């Protein structure tokens, strides 16, 4: 009788769902719960590979953390993809550099300015030993090749007879050196960063034209179409104000800008 009971118990164990279940061979959740704020790479302002050690990254994460906003900065290699996720996929938000949105594209976005940085035109001295005659009138650069990123507004350059060469930001400096473009327009700090990384031994060969090219606004944009867009925008704005009034913003700014 004892044996019969033992067999019964063993049989029950073997047939039980617990014994049969080995669990599905699938990885944990494919999608994290945090919402994405998309951005391209523009060091030293945005560096998705090093998010806590770049200007905008540090500002944005300080505010997200302080305001308990469940979001992450997600780097993409193309501005067009940032635009896609923001405008077609209703992503929570994006960082502004080089998105060049139209007025109608901006109507569903809440844009919170963070800072503005100087942009300049640069050329590579060995390819132009006599310098480039830029004094504010683009026509003086007619016939030359302007290196810029896809999606940039280039009408004024075309009208001035300047040829447009499209490239990625991270190779624009290399294109100057190999003489595939004559000049580029980038934030001064970005040029310094790439020259430091790629051509540290010849930084004196990268010449900044004296007349400023303009400003690049740095902003975060929240999407009204995202369920948390408006709420998170309000929280972010509040958090950014606190960061500025508390002096932490200026500390971060000093760390990267000066």
């Amino acid at each position: 009788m004892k044996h019969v009971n033992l067999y019964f118990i063993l049989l029950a164990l073997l047939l039980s769902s617990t014994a049969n279940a080995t669990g599905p061979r699938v990885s944990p959740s494919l999608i994290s719960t945090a919402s994405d704020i998309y951005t391209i790479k523009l060091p030293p302002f945005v560096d998705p590979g090093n998010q806590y050690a770049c200007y905008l990254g540090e500002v944005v994460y300080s505010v997200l953390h302080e305001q308990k906003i469940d979001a992450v900065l997600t780097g993409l290699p193309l501005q067009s993809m940032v635009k896609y996720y923001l405008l077609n996929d209703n992503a929570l938000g994006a960082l502004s550099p080089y998105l060049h949105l139209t007025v109608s594209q901006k109507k569903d976005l809440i844009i919170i300015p963070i800072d503005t940085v100087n942009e300049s035109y640069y050329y590579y001295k060995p390819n132009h030993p006599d310098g480039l005659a830029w004094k504010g009138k683009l026509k003086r650069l007619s016939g030359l090749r302007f290196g810029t990123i896809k999606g940039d507004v280039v009408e004024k350059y075309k009208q001035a007879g300047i040829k447009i060469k499209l490239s990625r930001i991270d190779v624009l400096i290399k294109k100057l050196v190999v003489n595939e473009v004559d000049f580029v327009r980038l934030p001064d700090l970005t040029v310094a960063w790439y020259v430091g990384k790629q051509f540290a031994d010849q930084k004196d060969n990268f010449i900044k034209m004296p007349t400023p090219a303009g400003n690049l606004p740095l902003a975060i944009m929240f999407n009204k179409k995202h369920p948390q867009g408006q709420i998170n925008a309000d929280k972010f704005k509040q958090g950014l104000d606190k960061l500025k009034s508390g002096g932490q913003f200026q500390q971060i700014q000093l760390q990267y800008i000066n």
Partner: protein
Amino acid sequence: MNNIYYLFFILLFNFVPTSVAKESSKVVSPEIIGLSSERLARIDKLINQQVNEKKIAGSVILMARQGKIAYLKASGQADIGKPMQADTIFRIVSMTKPLTSTAIMLLYEQGKLLLSDPVSKYIPEFKNQKVIEMLPKGSGFPYKLVPVKREVTIHDLLTHQSGILYLASTGWFPNPKREQVVGFYRDAGITDGFCRPDEAIGDMVKRLAKLPLYSQPGETWEYGLSVDVLGYLIEVISGAKLDTFVQTEIFDPLKMQDSHFYIPKNKISRLSADWESDWKGKLTRVTEPLIDGDLALCPQDAYQTSGKYLSGGASVLSTAYDYFRFSQMLLNKGELEGTRLLSRKTVELMTATNHIGKHDATLLHSHGWKFGLGFAIQQDRSHNVDSGDIGVFEWAGYYSTRFSINPKEQMITIFLSQTSPFEAHFGLWDKIMVLSTSAIAD
């Protein structure tokens, strides 16, 4: 003093044989291994005809059976005024892929990865990938991006089921979806690895990971940059650069002395030129990049003696003899001359007839050819490729190189040329395979 120099040269030339001498000394009489010399001579005739008609500039063909080389012939010229030699070095391009796949399997055997591992476990940029879906004409936007149903695994990369493309595929199988994905590749500076850009492979792979996949992982067979991703994966997992890892773990143990990711200075003179042929008698030495739509070939980059770019799918330069040693290791199920690289079970896994289910590896072959872990494998005879046997595994390179391993007949055939365009040599290759197989005389 002069006598010392004299003695030095005597020693040098008597005790350090050149590679050619070394390779030639290993060739045995075909009859010893069940091949017909008379029938093998038909290959001479075929190649001589191709060279005389200026369809190809030259080639090296190696045939081996039962571990012994029975045929090693260099024909035509390697460069202008330079005859082809048995030890001429070739851009083997996609024949790099089986080497990289083998390197992955070495890490697999060390317990450092599982083939079922998601790639994102090692390269976080592969997390949360998206797949492109084209929208009907007239939609406000041409496409949408949808989440992957499951993540890309290492097995997907080995078998080209990741949904990652080659840019050049727009020329092979044009369609709007492919054009859209390749458009992303172009804008993001992704290249096929046939040129050597000034960046580390990891930087390119990280950008690639953020671009949309052509198809859901596992749902199509698409030949592409998957093995370049594997190359970077080797760097991440092993902590060594890809070239260093392959050198120490494959080239050195197998004594592949003339295989390199970047050519050493002292071997530049042994590197074959690349030739462009119209296959009608016009043969031109290539000196500039060959651009055809999205296909970009930079044969001159092979003369670089150093660089950052290490493509696991395309960078290796090698000789017929070296690739024979690698092939023989696979044919021996992981061992060569007492050195065991892989276990028998791992090679059996790599060469298992079908790793791609209902899909077929139709790029170089036809329906009925499947894909293992690094090469195409013949599954049955219901296809229109003349050559081969069931179980034969082989692959090729873009400058007209090809290898074939026939486990049933214990036979290896290697054809190395440097002729573009690639597609034109299919017929020649099939004929070489027919002639080599029909030389079996036992």
